[in-house]
């Protein structure tokens, strides 16, 4: 049963689907991208929601359609989920970041252990935000969960590989930033001339490996 509050109005053209989990957000996102209901221009998954924007469409019909998709994806057994089908991106990293040693200290392990744990887990793109192509990578080894810098840097170079809280990320372009830098990659994760401009999309699996 999909109760009305699980599909919330977001203006005349938007509906916000409450999934309650990132995993279900990814499944609903993937289903909607496959099926593309009429007039849908944006599908934006988040940790507990998927925003769907469809200007000029029939919102009641879309609401019913979204309720169907939500019910169907929720009731599917997890092992039938798209995880196996999601693309994997390998990111080669030179572990020379300015915060590598402080992170090791905060984590109470050696630098080698930080690298081993960062390369030893498979991460999943949760969602993108903050800047174009900035992917919040979930599934980081809990030992590497360290707080952000007290004072953000005024400029972090593009390609910086960093951690903060439960997430890791690759800076897609130079920007200010408060995440702790472990190293850098030569893999371009944001290129407006490429199609798609980012190798990451919500649900993409990511592995870091020493370059």
């Amino acid at each position, binding site marked *: 049963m999909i109760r009305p509050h699980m599909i*919330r*109005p*977001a*203006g*005349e*053209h*938007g509906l*916000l689907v409450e999934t309650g989990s990132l995993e279900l957000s990814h499944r609903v*996102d993937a289903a909607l991208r496959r099926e593309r209901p009429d007039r849908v*221009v*944006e*599908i*934006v*998954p*988040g*940790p*507990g*929601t*998927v*925003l769907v*924007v469809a*200007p000029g469409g029939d*919102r*009641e019909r879309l609401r019913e359609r979204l309720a169907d998709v939500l019910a169907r994806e929720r009731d599917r057994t997890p092992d039938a989920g798209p995880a196996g089908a999601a693309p994997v991106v390998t990111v080669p990293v030179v572990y020379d970041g300015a915060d590598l040693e402080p992170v090791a200290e905060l984590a109470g392990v050696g630098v080698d252990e930080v690298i081993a744990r960062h390369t030893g887990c498979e991460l999943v793109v949760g*969602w*993108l*935000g*903050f*800047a*174009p*192509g*900035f992917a919040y990578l979930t599934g980081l080894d809990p030992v590497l969960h360290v707080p952000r810098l007290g004072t953000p840097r005024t400029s972090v170079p593009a390609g910086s590989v960093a951690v903060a809280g439960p997430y890791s990320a690759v800076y897609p*372009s130079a920007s200010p930033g408060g995440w702790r830098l472990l190293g850098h990659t030569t893999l371009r994760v944001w290129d*407006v001339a490429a199609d*798609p*401009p*980012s190798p*990451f*999309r*919500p649900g993409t699996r990511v592995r870091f490996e020493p370059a």
Partner: protein
Amino acid sequence: MIEVIAPGPYATVQDLGRPGFAHLGVPGSGAADAASMRLANRLVGNPEGLAGIELTFGSARLRFLIGAWAALAGAPVPAGPVRGAGMGAPFWVPAGAELRLGAPSRGLRTYLAVRGGIAVPPVLGSRSTDSLSGLGPEPLRAGTRLPVGPAEGGLVADYAPLPELGPAVLRVLPGPRDDWFVPAALAELCAAPYVVTQDSNRVGVRLRGPELVRARQGELPSEGMVTGAVQVPPSGQPIVFLADHPPTGGYPVIAVLRAADLAVAAQLRPGDEVRFTLQRSR
């Protein structure tokens, strides 16, 4: 080619933006008052999606190196010395002429369309300057040269009465997160006028007025945001999201503007008063 002699306080190239990339963290961008940009394009016989110039507080000087039809819409500005230059009707700018635009008597953003459109290279399908992410062309500066594209279709000489910029009323639909506020908050939003503050820009119209009190504390997990969202940060002072708003956000949205009222919001200037009025969701 058009050469910018003076851009005024802030001027950018805008079209209808780059929808379809919000899931990659890309703002929609595009003309803040898209209705006026579309109108200016129609007046010179352009498809509505061609790029024009969005002026903030007018006060620009542009030299046309080629002769071209042009039209102005949005916040009304005095225009000269080009013969026939004015709001809401196409006029011919001869090669070499300088178009001077004054400050708007009311409203904030004026749109200049040129027949053929401003033909800077598109980024992710749009020529819009995105002030939040930096995508698209730089804001206009003295000396910026803007190519003009080839004209297509016929010119339909026309005149469009400009919409009245009367007392600003923004119609809102409740949600998606009105339940994060005390029950009286929606009534509070609509009870008394808010004042537009100085730090408003293409990202959002920041307002000062009655505080909107939350019923739920704690952090809302980041979620997708629509243009026109009335987002409420911890200060309780609402922000109306315009074209360059971040595609996701972590503060609850108490209500969303009717789509037609985005154009009204985009014309608000610092110091203006604005009222909200509630419309029930269909």
